[in-house]
């Protein structure tokens, strides 16, 4: 068993990270802190999950959200998708393993992956609406959010959702408020099987290595850790029994990365766009300096008067 985070003290505590620990801030440049905090991570061991949704309940409770009560359409997902009120969602897949002919119930806890290279933050146009702390947590700051939905286009995991109530974007915070006072995320605390564990990123990788070894010894030879390099690694990682086929788990992307379309939009388009506008304005200005105004002359007026018959009398 991985040692769980001890219960908090009853004494007030100063937050362990804040503004000074930002390594990225949307639509802004920040000077990263000289020293990076130890990177944290949440490890979700899919092979241990029993689908009880205690994590979902804990998330709702801690964040005080009120997901709508939906109708049962014959599947286990509830609600049917991530919503502005449901930051994490158990997704269920029934898969018949062609090698063993066994029915496998693959349950994945979906939610923000807290990418090291977050596409949401890259896409966001509002200064400070998305921040990344040096411990790896990517957080949305609602008072700066303008509700444009660009983060949805930037995210390779389709995570953020815009509230139709306050028109700002919501997603898992990795319980930044709990972590700031030395606690782990609510979901990790609630999980009865230790399918969710919490610690530093290094600890989680080590722990995952043991789990992978164990799974391999039980015949899951493709077991492995999901820490996708395309987004620089993530601060929420999965242990998968079929790490060679992440798409099996409700379309977990095989090689997620910020879409090249987003890179083009947020990269070359911006620089080239502003340059082109500048050049257009400057060209007009230069032309005016060189050519001067194009004025109608006296002769032009006279010619028109002749044409209309006035000038002849």
């Amino acid at each position, binding site marked *: 068993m991985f040692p769980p985070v001890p219960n908090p003290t009853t004494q007030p505590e100063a937050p362990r990270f804040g503004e000074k620990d930002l390594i990225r801030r949307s639509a802004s440049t920040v000077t990263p802190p000289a020293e990076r905090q130890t990177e944290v991570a949440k490890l979700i061991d899919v092979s241990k999950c029993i689908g009880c949704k205690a994590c979902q309940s804990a998330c709702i409770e801690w964040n005080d959200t009120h997901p709508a009560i939906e109708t049962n359409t014959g599947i286990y997902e509830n609600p049917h998708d991530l919503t502005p009120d449901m930051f994490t969602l158990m997704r269920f897949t029934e898969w018949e393993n062609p090698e063993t002919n066994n029915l496998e119930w693959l349950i994945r806890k979906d939610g923000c992956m807290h990418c090291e290279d977050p596409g949401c933050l890259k896409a966001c146009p509002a200064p400070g609406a998305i921040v990344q702390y040096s411990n790896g947590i990517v957080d949305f700051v609602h008072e700066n959010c303008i509700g444009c939905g660009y983060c949805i286009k930037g995210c390779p995991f389709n995570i953020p959702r815009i509230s139709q109530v306050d028109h700002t974007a919501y997603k898992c915070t990795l319980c930044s408020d709990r972590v700031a006072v030395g606690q782990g995320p609510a979901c990790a605390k609630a999980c009865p099987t230790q399918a969710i564990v919490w610690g530093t990123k290094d600890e989680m990788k080590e722990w995952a290595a043991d789990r992978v070894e164990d799974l391999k010894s039980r015949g899951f030879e493709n077991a492995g850790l999901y820490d996708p390099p395309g987004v620089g690694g993530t601060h929420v990682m999965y242990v998968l029994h079929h790490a060679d086929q992440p798409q099996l788990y409700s379309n977990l992307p095989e090689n997620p990365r910020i879409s090249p*379309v987003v890179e083009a939009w947020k990269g070359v388009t911006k620089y080239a766009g502003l340059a082109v506008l500048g050049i257009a304005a400057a060209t007009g200005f230069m*032309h005016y300096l060189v050519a001067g105004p194009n004025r109608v002359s006296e002769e032009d007026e006279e010619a028109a008067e002749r044409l209309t018959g006035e000038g002849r009398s």
Partner: protein
Amino acid sequence: MSIDVKANGNYEVGKDERVHPGKPVVVDRYTAGARINHWITATSLVLLALSGLALFHPSLFFLTGLFGGGQLTRIIHPWIGVILFFSFFGLFLRFWKANLWRRDDSDWLAHGRDVLAGHEERAPEVGKYNAGQKLVFWSMSALIIVLITSGVVIWDQYFSVFTTVEQKRWAVLVHSIAAIVAICVWIIHVYSAFWVRGTIRAMTRGSVTGGWAWRHHRKWLRDLVARTPHDKSGRTPAE
């Protein structure tokens, strides 16, 4: 709006365009309706450019202040887009015929250098619009269609469920590029109106001087004069 169309289908002169002899000669160019329509379009376009650019680059985010903050900018921009679309559609209906491309236009364009150097007389005589104006007209028409189409796709508040995230990614890329091109066309349009003195009053007072028409749109002036039932003396002008 009705306009005179000769048998070949080409625009010659509009029925509200009139020559008033005098010193100087005054030529009606735009009706009050057309001018109001134009200024609604112009205002919307400028507001769209400002509110759009605010989201386009962080260094321009301060422009959201003009609209009462980021949330309001995000809300208002697409609605102004809808106004622009319908307003421009009005202009399109008014002006499309006069903007049809003719052989002369290609010749005129070949003299682009002369025109820019102030030697318009070396280029063929021009009807109501010259080739440059026609290019502005058609490129704006195309760009506004691209902008409204891509704009609706990224209008998440109402339309997010109709498209996939991947389609929205393309739409926002297309929208931002089209916006930049549209703003460039706008710069060309405004600069030309400013550079060619005597043009702006066509859209404010509705009329231009005869000299302006003679210098820049001689064929249009000739056609107008040829059509005009002459002054009280009963003489035909330009016989």
